[in-house]
């Protein structure tokens, strides 16, 4: 599709473009994937937000080994590897790295950033693990401090009108992702999972306005696109992190004849279900959408909201099975994967396959067998 080609072209030159913008005085704000950094704040002070979403390469974990033991989620160890090795040029580009701390896996990344690379400017704020008025207020205080930091760092005041414009831009992007996603409810969807994920990953790095144009053209192209030729079991893919470069499980599902109709991930997939109200107290609106309205990741306590959401998605998208793809040592997901299948079965009748990865090529064989068996079982 032409829109995807355009995205490829844009991403190929993106780093050069960003570096040119930096020469003109624009600041680059890097942040790790996770969905709790309101990009609007960076856009409103004329900075360039870039998210670190790359992982999947086991070699990078070796780089991280000099800074932390191996018993952390490999996505976050990958970020430590990229941060410290300079192997991801986007890390080198970032003038300021903002870290919203969610659980201990991201805390270890934040520690590395602060202790081992103090020359990198960074800003940390916390994301509570429960949803109530106090938690909302805590998150709001955090993004207010972030706003002040960004204003100081860029020298640009984040006025209401600038923020409103940024919110509208980001809302449009979310709206387009939502529209594309909803089309995948169809009996014979035209959107391939790979394409949707490529768009989503691309949006973490692309210029926001360019990305919106790409999404708009993608939607338009879909009007004349034939449904996917496949007629395999519909799979809901869920987990903690779907990084750029970690397509092994997706590929294996598709190769085994499954059709992924939805990806629900806390990290690596942009939350797009809710919009930020562009009127009124804009900071509070950001906090409401990014913290309260967003379906919580698995490390919230309890994780019931997400599990309810998965059941709803499974029904709405008429999934035939759920693949739960967790990364090794992400304990919240591991523990939930023990008790959720019974509930899923009871409420939807669907089976669930739990897969685990440490970005190791050796995993491919066993993963293939398990995925093929799962898909074959559903077919029957």
């Amino acid at each position, binding site marked *: 599709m032409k829109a995807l080609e355009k995205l490829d072209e844009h991403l190929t030159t993106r780093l050069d473009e960003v570096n040119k913008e930096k020469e003109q005085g624009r600041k680059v704000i890097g942040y790790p994937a996770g969905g709790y950094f309101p990009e609007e704040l960076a856009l409103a002070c004329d900075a360039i937000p870039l998210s670190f979403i790359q992982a999947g390469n086991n070699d990078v974990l070796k780089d991280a080994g*000099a*800074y*932390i*033991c191996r*018993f*952390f989620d490999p996505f976050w160890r990958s970020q430590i590897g990229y941060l410290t090795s300079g192997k991801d040029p986007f890390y080198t580009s970032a003038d300021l790295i903002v870290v919203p*701390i969610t*659980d*201990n*896996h991201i*805390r*270890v990344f*934040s*520690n590395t*950033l*602060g*202790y*081992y690379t*103090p020359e990198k400017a*960074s*800003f*940390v*704020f*916390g*994301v*509570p*693990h*429960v949803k*109530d008025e*106090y*938690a909302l*207020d*805590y998150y709001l*205080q*955090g993004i207010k401090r972030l706003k002040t930091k960004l204003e100081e760092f860029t020298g640009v005041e984040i006025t209401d009108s600038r923020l409103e414009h940024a919110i509208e831009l980001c809302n449009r992007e979310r709206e387009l992702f939502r529209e594309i996603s909803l089309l995948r409810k169809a009996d014979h969807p035209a959107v391939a999972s790979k394409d949707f994920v490529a768009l989503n990953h691309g949006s973490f790095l692309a210029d926001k306005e360019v990305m919106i144009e790409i999404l708009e053209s993608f939607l338009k192209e879909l009007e004349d696109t034939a449904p996917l030729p496949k007629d395999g079991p519909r799979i809901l893919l869920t987990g903690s992190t779907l990084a750029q470069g970690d397509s092994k499980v997706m590929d294996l599902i598709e190769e085994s004849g499954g059709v992924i109709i939805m990806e629900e991930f806390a990290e690596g997939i942009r939350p797009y279900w809710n919009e930020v109200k562009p009127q009124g107290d804009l900071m509070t609106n950001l906090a409401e959408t990014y913290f309260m309205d967003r379906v919580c990741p*698995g*490390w919230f*306590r*309890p*994780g019931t909201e997400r599990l309810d959401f998965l059941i709803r998605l499974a029904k709405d998208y008429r999934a035939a099975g759920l693949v739960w793809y967790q990364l*090794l*040592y992400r*304990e*919240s997901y*591991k*523990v*939930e994967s*023990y*008790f959720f299948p019974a*509930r899923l079965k009871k409420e939807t009748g669907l089976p669930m396959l739990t897969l*685990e990865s440490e970005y190791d090529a050796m995993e491919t064989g066993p993963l293939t067998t398990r995925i093929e068996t799962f898909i074959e079982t559903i077919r029957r």
Partner: protein
Amino acid sequence: MAAYYDELLRLCGFEQEEIDEERPRVEKAFERLGIGPEDMDTADHWVRQNHDVTLRGVRKLLGAWLKELIDVVVAKDEGKKVVYFGFPAILGPGLILSASSQEVMVTAPDMVLDHTMGQIFNKLIPILEAGEFHGLPPGHALCSLWQAKIGGIALGMIPVPDLALASSYYCDMGSKADDLVAALYGVPVAYIDGVMDSPWGEFPEYLPERVHYLGAQINQALKKAEEVLGIEIVPDAWERSQKESRPFRENLVRLVEFMKADPVPISITVIQLMEGLASSSTGRGIREGIKAMEILIPEMEERVRAGIGVSEKGAPRVMLRAGHASDPRVTRLVEEAGLAVPLTFILGSSAGGVKVTPAGNYNTPGEIIADYEMTGGYYHGTEAQIKFYEKAAKLMKLDGFIATYIYNCRPVATVSHPQKKYLEEKTGLPVLSLEIDNFDSRAYSADSLRTKVETFAEMLKEKKRAAKA
């Protein structure tokens, strides 16, 4: 009439009148725990092998743990409401609940099982295996304390609690495992949430909103506990609980002074028994622990006066981050290698008398507790923890650190690499970074660690010899 367990209980510091009085409870508890006459020889041998039972205070400490075990096993039979908290924990909420009602037992049952079924009976493994079978499988670096807790419940050894107090301010695993208990047994959970979001370099400062948030969460959890347990928190509960546990803390401070002696008068395994008790019990364990310490302190004093110790005079002195909760052989290994271990991290922190002054002026129990905990460092962040180790070097005139980190405990594993670099740079002392499991010695046994510890010990001894020459 004497029963098969009398001798063991006496070895663990019980007086005969206590045994006679407790007999029905002991028998009910032992039956539920699967402890019978056939276990007595093993237990007797295990206790004598691992604990210095020539000290009456040590025997009393073992007894304090056993009493906590018996209490939790039979709590529901005696009509008590049971509350479990995750370890490590901000203890304040549990202490407040305990001080508010005699009908509520608040404890960390996993630590209790580790110290008794592990340290006294050497029968922890089947419990861990049951935990592995019920949702916490091996090979995923899942917490072995939680395996003990889930295993204990699954085997019917300890009761299903009426409420879980989740340590959501520290541990992702613990809070999620509380969700598991809720899913398996329908237990209500009061989450005490907090966010360890301090940037590196912030400690000892902290944002007031962290205190407000954690404080509000504690207050909410207490309110939920009132509803679930049907009790009322008495207005002076916090003060009362502080008053009751103060002697424990004061005795720990006195102990620190004795541990400064050369040679170090008692094994660090004994200190571990005390530290563990102080952070696991909110009731009888604390009271019994205080009594044990009052016996132990004069015994230590006597040893110091006589120049008796567990290591040679002049042996290199190291801090061991924490003693092993279920298998004292792992802790003893360090002393067997010829090192003196005057303190653990806990003894070197606010719990052991390092003065900390909370910054704020707060009125609600939650905020007062939260403010104290932020200052104490453990729940502040990784940097704060490491800075307390640094203080320990001066406090105890250390020659090195055995900086353990727990492979299956993410909050502790965060220190794995930074602690070595930081301590070596700041103190100039050598640091052995050692990966262990503090609660389960199957994969990290004393023998698997021996070569590393002995090599480090030889290096320290040589360094000391060279400095003398």
